[in-house]
């Protein structure tokens, strides 16, 4: 993984950019087709199937998340905000490369 190594905490906007690329790949869509203020479920993300997404996010980001994270933060914007906080709290300052 080519981490963007910076010492300062990650901004929600960095996380959002990363999330858009990941969700575009997972949902097999183009990044510009995703509206970050819309509920992710609008794009066919099944609520129960979303359970598996928290595991993927945990594995990719190296942090621990509540399983229902995508239920609690149903838009990419709100999820990015939450993840930025979690990453900072758990001492993570880098994201996996967007094209990883």
């Amino acid at each position, binding site marked *: 993984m080519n981490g963007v190594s910076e010492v300062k905490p990650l901004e929600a906007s960095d996380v959002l950019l990363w999330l858009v690329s990941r969700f575009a790949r*997972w*949902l*097999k869509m183009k990044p510009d087709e995703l509206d970050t203020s819309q*509920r*992710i*479920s609008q794009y*066919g*993300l*099944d*609520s*129960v*199937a*979303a*359970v*598996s*997404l*928290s*595991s*993927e996010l945990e*594995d990719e980001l190296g942090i*621990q998340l509540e*399983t*229902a994270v*995508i*239920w*609690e933060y*149903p838009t990419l914007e709100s999820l990015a905000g939450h993840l930025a906080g979690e990453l900072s709290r758990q001492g993570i300052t880098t994201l996996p490369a967007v094209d990883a």
Partner: protein
Amino acid sequence: MTMVQKTQALELEDYLGDPFDSRNVFSFRTAVEMDELEAYPEAACNMLNDWGLPAYYVPAKLGGKFTSFEQVLNLMRVVARRDLTAAIAHGKTYLGAVAVWMAASVEQQSKLARIILDRGQVSLGLTEQGHGSDLMASDVEVRHEGEKYRLYGRKWLINNATRSRALTVFTRTDPQGGPRGFSLLLVDKAEIDRRQYSLVPKIKTHGIRGADISGIQFSGCSISPDAFIGKIGSGLDITLKALQVTRTMCSALSLGAADTALRITLDFAQQRRIYNNTVVDIPYPRQLLLESFLDLLVCDCTAVGGARALHVAPEQMSVWSAVVKNFVPVTVETLIQQLSRVLGARFYLREDHCAGMFQKIVRDNAIVSLFDGSTAVNLEMIALQLRRRLRENPATNTRETPEDKLSTIFNIAEPLPEFIYEAFDLSCPGADPVFSTLSRINNQLEAFWAAAPDGVANALKSLVTELQGAVSALRTEVEAAWKSNALGTRPSARLFRLAQRYSTLHAAASCLHLWTRSREHLDPFFSDGIWLILALRRLLGSSAIVTDDATVAKWEGQVFDELLKLHRDNRLFAVTTLALSPRELVGKVSIQQ
């Protein structure tokens, strides 16, 4: 199982009496007769109430006698071997109550405990006519009208909807739905206006014909704000977690059904002479009986492991419960089909051999794979987490179940920790511990390898290697299938098929772990491991050639002899076997028209 649990199961077994004796309430003849009449097993359920079974559905801190799910598994198996209708009709109270034990207020819990201890029934109002397993499409809803909450809509195919005193009801609380759009309610029929709900009549079913499978229609039913279980909007989480418990426990029903199916088929096969031979001495039916016995032992290990894991590794149960619920009922369905070939025409009769009990079991058992999440629902739950469950290196995840947890799960002599309802999760933290610890089995068995005959030790060692190889091959296949499946969407058909394979391998690993860790506490036949070799060989497929044909034939003979012995001695067909209520004419067909 510990002595206390064994004693309770024995007590209930003794109390219910010989099911082959038509004079008993819990006799096969009565069960069939009630089924023919499509009549609710009232007398049978009253007997269970008189014995005090409802107390085992209630946590001890609320005045009940529940201590472990292993205990409940053994109690329910004893009931289920006599009559699935009664076992389901009675046991469904636990399904209705589990969400309350898991997430309700102390007041709600105390109230429900009193209802159950007073013999009141509780049911779970989950499914609706138009939506089946699709919970998020549920239409039954609570509307906040002025000062009041009102409940609208119809729940359908609900066990005991009519007879129950209370129901937990899955309802929509946000018109938009979504994962935070549903809530659970505890509805006490004694507290709602009788004019605001109506009962939907019992529907005719293929099996468990006497069961009260009906519905309830709420028509603006006024609900107290105290009726919500947990937070408003938490209904989906609580329900998915509660089902992890009941899915695991459903296996007791299949285990009981399989025991009786095998027992009454053996009754026939040992008596029946055809082509100058007794059926048990003819190679093909003999093989079918042997395989059924092995499959039942595998189901037993898988179910016992699951029931104990509920206490020790609740965080694993989103997948583990789905494996048990998928593997055990479906394997028992196949087992019963196999046995029907041994019985021949008698499997189809609604009277004569054993009062026609076999055909009732065929029909009754078919529902077990359907309720509390169908086989498809369970396979999906497994498929969604397959990749992580098969991960090679569990050590990277700090929440990994440690080795000592697995020891407690599979060492049946070890007391279980107190059950913690709050510890359940919607997904598992990491790799499946039953696979990630396989590499240590050889070391754990050092003493056994030294003492066991060469043939047995070598065969088992090669099967452990074979199982590890099968897990590894599955991992490769899952990786490939994962990449072509859009994440967060429904898993592909290929992932479903791999989830099925995962279940089979999990069952194989469960047998191996249970035997490895409990061997010293088992009867000599079960501790010597020959049954395990044959069972694993069967699970892993015929490619698992472990020794020469003559040795396999010898081992099969030994296992078959044990089957006949357990039948003759009137003991449960289980790894932790149990003495059953005495039969006056053991080995004979004591019920005939």
